[in-house]
């Protein structure tokens, strides 16, 4: 999963080379050290990338950009179904209510638009079943955020067994909808997502019938939808309460998942560095009494996704006022998952596998030799982690040198020493030269 570079669900993280100035902003924030600057431009190693979107957020030149395949034409042929992440409902201001937003999706060409409520409801039921099954390894780590899952796969493989082994709400929703549509003609499924990680996850399903044809970022639909909503506005406010809430909105806000799962207490963490710190603690065996970790790599949860429009905290304020008492409760989905289905249907069949992005070599002996060489090489570097070499830290440069991806002289400190030495040697040599040659040089 995520090992392949490419156009995931029609959404691609790519560098706009003309904008990249080779600064070190993205280099420093990447949690898996997947970025290097080479030849004055940033480069990304796909097998280490966890799609957290930190590079997109931090780039002052907007060089890391998310490219989206044109979608307007694709919708013209009809039969497209949109499934909306709860974060979508927080993007359009205080006059746009969930039913208006769903209707606007129809107006821009989708034949149908659904909120994720039912998927969240079924997901919740499966997770509850897992938590009470006695099979869970503490601390149980929420797997709803795909970037958290990728982070565990790349950097904390020993915690894979702690991840909730249940398909995502989006996957479950896709499967439910396909059941509804059975026999009813070809449907194109679109997930409407707040972040890169969910875009990538859209086409990579782990349960049968769980995949989407494409993912579309909220950002790319925003102006089209806002135009429709603007036209609707002025028709007055809807009657209070009734139209203002739909089930599942709470999930877009950190802590919402814990409440929806009915857990009294959980360790709630958002932000990729913060999640890493908590995973370190878990890996050191410090959190074995923590029942559940609700983790989001974006600060502010999915409202903080890099493909949203609205400021996440403002969005949170507006969404909070929408959240009803009826959050994805049983009475909202009396018919969901009927016909002998239970939560186990959404358990993943095979365990999540680690990604080997951090490994030095396949062969242990060779890897140990490399580790020793890294310890030698790093002594030559100043330890200031300036990033001028194009690697995120002196340690990363040492590793790159040993792996053959960089030269020691990429370090400006080393280069300066070499140059000073060269100059001294040259000076010494020239002083010994006959005056004739000296003249010539002038």
């Amino acid at each position: 999963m995520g090992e392949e570079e490419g156009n995931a669900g029609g959404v691609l993280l790519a560098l706009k080379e003309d904008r990249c100035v080779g600064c070190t902003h993205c280099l420093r924030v990447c949690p898996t050290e997947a970025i290097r600057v080479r030849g004055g431009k940033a480069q990304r190693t796909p097998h280490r990338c966890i799609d957290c979107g930190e590079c997109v957020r931090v780039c002052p030149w907007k060089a890391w950009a998310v490219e989206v395949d044109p979608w307007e034409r694709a919708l013209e042929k009809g039969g497209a179904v949109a499934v909306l992440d709860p974060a979508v409902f927080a993007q359009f201001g205080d006059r746009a209510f969930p039913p208006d937003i769903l209707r606007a999706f129809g107006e821009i060409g989708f034949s149908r638009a659904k909120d994720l409520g039912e998927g969240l409801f079924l997901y919740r039921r499966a997770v509850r079943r897992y938590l009470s099954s006695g099979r869970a390894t503490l601390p149980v780590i929420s797997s709803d955020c795909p970037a958290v899952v990728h982070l565990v796969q790349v950097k904390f493989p020993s915690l894979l067994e702690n991840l909730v082994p249940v398909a995502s709400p989006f996957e479950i929703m896709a499967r439910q909808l396909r059941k509804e549509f059975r026999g009813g003609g070809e449907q194109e499924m679109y997930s409407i997502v707040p972040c890169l990680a969910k875009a990538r996850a859209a086409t990579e399903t782990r349960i049968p019938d769980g995949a989407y044809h494409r993912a579309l970022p909220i950002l790319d639909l925003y102006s089209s939808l806002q135009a429709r909503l603007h036209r609707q506005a002025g028709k007055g406010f809807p009657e209070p309460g009734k139209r203002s809430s739909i089930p599942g909105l709470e999930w877009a806000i950190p802590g919402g998942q814990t409440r929806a799962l009915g857990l009294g207490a959980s360790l709630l963490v958002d932000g990729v560095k913060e999640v890493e710190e908590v995973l370190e603690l878990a890996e050191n065996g410090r959190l074995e009494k923590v029942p559940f970790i609700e983790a989001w790599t974006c600060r502010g949860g999915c409202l903080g996704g890099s493909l949203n429009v609205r400021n996440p905290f403002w969005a949170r304020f507006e969404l909070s006022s929408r959240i009803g008492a009826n959050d994805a409760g049983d009475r909202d989905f009396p018919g969901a998952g009927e016909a002998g289905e239970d939560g186990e249907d959404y358990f993943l069949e095979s365990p999540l596998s680690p990604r080997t992005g951090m490994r030095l070599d396949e062969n242990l002996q060779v890897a140990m030799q490399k580790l020793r060489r890294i310890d030698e090489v790093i002594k030559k570097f100043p330890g200031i982690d300036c990033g001028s070499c194009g690697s995120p830290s002196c340690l990363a440069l040492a590793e790159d040198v040993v792996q053959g991806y960089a030269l020691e002289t990429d370090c400006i400190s080393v280069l300066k020493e070499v140059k000073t030495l060269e100059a001294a040697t040259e000076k010494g040599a020239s002083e010994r030269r006959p005056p004739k040659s000296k003249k010539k040089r002038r």
Partner: protein
Amino acid sequence: MIAEFEIQGQDFKRAGEACFEIKNRLKRLGIPPGIIRRVATAAYEAEVNVIVYAHKGTLRVNLDDRCVEVTVIDVGPGIPDVEQAMQVGYSTAPPYVKQLGYGSGMGLPNIKKNSDWMDIQSEVNRGTTLRFKVNLNESPKKDG
């Protein structure tokens, strides 16, 4: 040897740093995740023990084709009764240490639980040498 660290007594702020480095190195080497977790848990306890009880110490990690071996040599008060110290819940940590969340008497038992072999040599008023090994072949012991 794949790693060596100096640990200062009472340096609570840096608790976990040696453990972090060890994990990083083992991950770079491609050691199986389950092994890393056991080494990490045991090494963290050993690191904290030096911080809580000793003046200073050195933590060394060795690796061969069969096991990861961690050796922690500290200069400190030593352990008068090793057998007693191995009891779950037995602790001589002062109250302020307990308030920090350490010294619950789980340290040495936890190291034993997460390792396949463990040895303590201690001399009162001189110091303690703790060694433990975690086999690279997934051991029958349950993780964590």
